[in-house]
Structure formats: structure tokens, C-alpha cells
């Protein structure tokens, strides 16, 4: 890991103290303008919550950060690596960011442990034993060490999502991206996943999280972002954001979801 960072140090600029830096980012799906001139800087260790109506571009924003979506204009620098430069940086960034999806996306044909060890072995070249030790550590941390030998289909939704978090953590990412991690869960399972995320936040992980769990936002977010129609409409600390939203649209939205 250290070598990797050293290799790519060429493009470490002034932005190197930033975890994520987006400048004038624009993204189109064919004709559809999904992200409009996004500017966003995330400091190391910062926790950002993104909310907004459906279709506003929240997932797209977050997926651009690890290049699951390619942007057409602007610049994204993640952990000092300029993504827009393409090439090797993309691979590096994908290794340094962990992502958790709404629908878990665990690999159904592998056990929980195999889910967690695959990438460390194939991407980081760790030995099986080493990868398994790390995996068990993280499974412990998300409080399901006893499920290691099970297949995803044998777990509840909340357990599956915690495995997904552990799987991402096993790659030792510097930044965690969450895309509505609790919205596919039954209400009673939401809490167990949020608790796991709060733990993670308390340990100082840099996090960008799309969620509508406003309780979570209040508790852990350093800043909350409201998006609408591909734009960042409002951005502020939870106190400013919930206490005194500046924009009409933000107020409307907060009125609706609470």
C-alpha cells in the first residue's frame, strides 16, 4: 500500500490534505444532465451526509468518486490522486475507497468469509491466512463473527449489510462511501447497521453517506449536503442545515421526509 501511494505521488498537489476534491464536475447520461457543476471538498476524517429527492443525483455523485461512473467534465482528486487523469489512478482509488450499496451486493456464491477475503487476496495479494485474520477482525467489529461460514442468503438484511461494510473495510480503505445503506432494510434492522456506522465514524474514518436517516445525520455528520436536480443546493453543519435551512427547496424536502 505504501509503495502504491509513493508511485503515484507525482500528482499529489496542494490538495493532498483533502480526502476528496471535486471541481466543476459535470456528468451526462446521454442527453440527461445528471450532475451540474459540482464543487465539493472533503477533508480527511470528515463525515458528510448527502440527502435529496429521488433522482437528484446523489448516487451518481458518490459513484463518480470511485469511477463507477465516468464524468464528462471537471476534475476529481481523491486522496491526492487525480482520477480524471485516468490510467492507474483509477485502480488505486478503487482500492482506497470502500463502497456499501443499498442492495448489499454480497456475492451469493461465496461464504461471508470468502466475500471478505477475495479482494484482499486478489487485489492486494495477501495470503489466505492473513486475509482471513483481517476479515475475522472486521467481522468481529461489525458484531457478526459467528456468521463467517454462512452464505449471504442465510442472513437477515441487517446482517448482510454489516457483512458488506466489513467486506469494504477489509481493503483498509481511506474513505468509505455509503449509498443509502439502510433503505432496503426492515425497520428493526436499520438500527444495527446505523450503530455500526456510528462506531466507524467515531474512529475517524472519512465517510460520504447518502441517507435519509436524519437522526444519523444529526448525530455524526460534520456537514450535510442537500442535492436537487443534479445540483448541490445547500451545504452546512447539521445545526445550520436542520435548524435554519436557507433554501425553500431544502425546507420543503425536510418537511416531507420527517
Amino acid at each position: 500500500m505504501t509503495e502504491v501511494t509513493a508511485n503515484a505521488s507525482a500528482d499529489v498537489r496542494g490538495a493532498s490534505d483533502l480526502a476528496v476534491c471535486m471541481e466543476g464536475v459535470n456528468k451526462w447520461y446521454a442527453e440527461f444532465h445528471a450532475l451540474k457543476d459540482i464543487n465539493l471538498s472533503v477533508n480527511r476524517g470528515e463525515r458528510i451526509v448527502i440527502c435529496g429527492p429521488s433522482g437528484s443525483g446523489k448516487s451518481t455523485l458518490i459513484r463518480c468518486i470511485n469511477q463507477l461512473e465516468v464524468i464528462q467534465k471537471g476534475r476529481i482528486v481523491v486522496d491526492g490522486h487525480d482520477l480524471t487523469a485516468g490510467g492507474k489512478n483509477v485502480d488505486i482509488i478503487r482500492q482506497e475507497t470502500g463502497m456499501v450499496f443499498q442492495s448489499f451486493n454480497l456475492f451469493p456464491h461465496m461464504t461471508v468469509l470468502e466475500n471478505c477475503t477475495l479482494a484482499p487476496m486478489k487485489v492486494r495479494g495477501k495470503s489466505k491466512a492473513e486475509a482471513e485474520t483481517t476479515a475475522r477482525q472486521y467481522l468481529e467489529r461489525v458484531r457478526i463473527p459467528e456468521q463467517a461460514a454462512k452464505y449471504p442468503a442465510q442472513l437477515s438484511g441487517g446482517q448482510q449489510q454489516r457483512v458488506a461494510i466489513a467486506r469494504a473495510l477489509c481493503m483498509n480503505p481511506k474513505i468509505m462511501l455509503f449509498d443509502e445503506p439502510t433503505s432496503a432494510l426492515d425497520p428493526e434492522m436499520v438500527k444495527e447497521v446505523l450503530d455500526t456506522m456510528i462506531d466507524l465514524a467515531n474512529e475517524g474514518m472519512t465517510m460520504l453517506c447518502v441517507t435519509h436517516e436524519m437522526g444519523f445525520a444529526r448525530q455524526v455528520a460534520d456537514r450535510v449536503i442537500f442535492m436537487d436536480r443534479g445540483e448541490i443546493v445547500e451545504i452546512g453543519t447539521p445545526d445550520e442545515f436542520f435548524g435554519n435551512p436557507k433554501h425553500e427547496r431544502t425546507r420543503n424536502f425536510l418537511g416531507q421526509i420527517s
Partner: protein
Amino acid sequence: MIRPFGWNEFLIIVMAAQWTIALSAIAFAGGGVGGLLIALARVCDIRPLRLASLAFIRVFQGTPLLMQLFLVFFGMNILGLAINPWIAAAIALTLHASAFLGEIWRGCIDAVPPGQREASTALGLRYYNRMRYIILPQAARIAVAPTVGFLVQLIKGTSLAAIIGFTELTRQGQIINNATFSPFMVFGTVAAIYFVLCWPLSLLAQRMENKFSRATQR
């Protein structure tokens, strides 16, 4: 001249099944490799490769296997490339099976939820590892039933290799029929042997399909 249909004739027909089996095995081995390449080309990011594999599928699914066998074997030979019937059969059946299996397997690869590809990409896995560990194993489970189903069609399809000189099951039946003039006995026997070869496979396909749908229902 005309002789009765007897035990001897029955045995001759049964023995011809070995050619049917051998041809099917060749077709399936060749089609397996070719089909995988075609399927991968169909879902890859390189547009020319996608279009080429599509054209391949269109042509070889769109023309009768009989013609393919004929043109490969006799065509190569009049072009001065002396090839023996086995090689010709291997080539033509491979092309034919690759087209069908390629299309079947492309469907199976597409049927793996896109989230799987995204999750593995997000973990930093690159193309080979993604395919090898995530996409193909899941596609393979879906693929078993339709693949075995196609194998059954392929076994029956090998009868067309008679055109390039193979005396396999169907052709042997025709020859015996012309010597015995007992079509119902002869073709009844032929049908029964095909049934014995194919039915276990059909059952297997069904069982795999049921097993799969049970596994995904949950």
C-alpha cells in the same frame, strides 16, 4: 435381396450411436470453448468485437447446420485444402455450437445482477478476477439448464453430419431401411436410441433448473 429386420440389424443401428456420441462430444467441447469466447466478446466494452461476435451469431444461427457442414467439408477440399471429415465436422459443429452457446451464455452473464459487477469493481477487482470469481461462477449456475437443453438439440443435430460421410445413427437407420424396407421398426429403433441418449440429459436440465429456481426464490 430384401432382408428382414432382425437382431443383427438392430445391433448395427445401436453401434452407430457411437458416432453420434463422438460427434456430439466434439461439438460440445469445441462449442464450449468457442461459445465462451463469443459470449465474452458479446459483453465486452470493445464495440467492434461486440459487433463481430453478433454477426458471427447471426450467420451461424441463421443458416442450416447441413449447409455449414457441406460448405466446410467440400468447400475446403475444392479450395485445395484437403481436410478429413472429422476435422470438417469438428469445425462446422464448433462454429454452430459456439454461436448457440455464445448467445445462451451471454444471456446468463447479463442475468447476473449489475450490482455484482459494481460491487466487485468497487473493491478494486479488475476484469479477469471479476469474471473469474464473481460473474462467471454466478452465470454458470443459471447456464446449466439451458446448456444441457441445447446439448440435446445438438445430439439430434449431429445426424446432419451424414452429408459429409458419417454413418451415424440416423444415416445408419436410412441405410438399413433401404436394405430391409421396414421403416417403422428401423425408425422406431432410431427414435428409441435418441430418446435413451437425450432423456437423461433433459431430466438433468430440469433438475438443475428446479434447483436453481429454488435457490434464488428464498
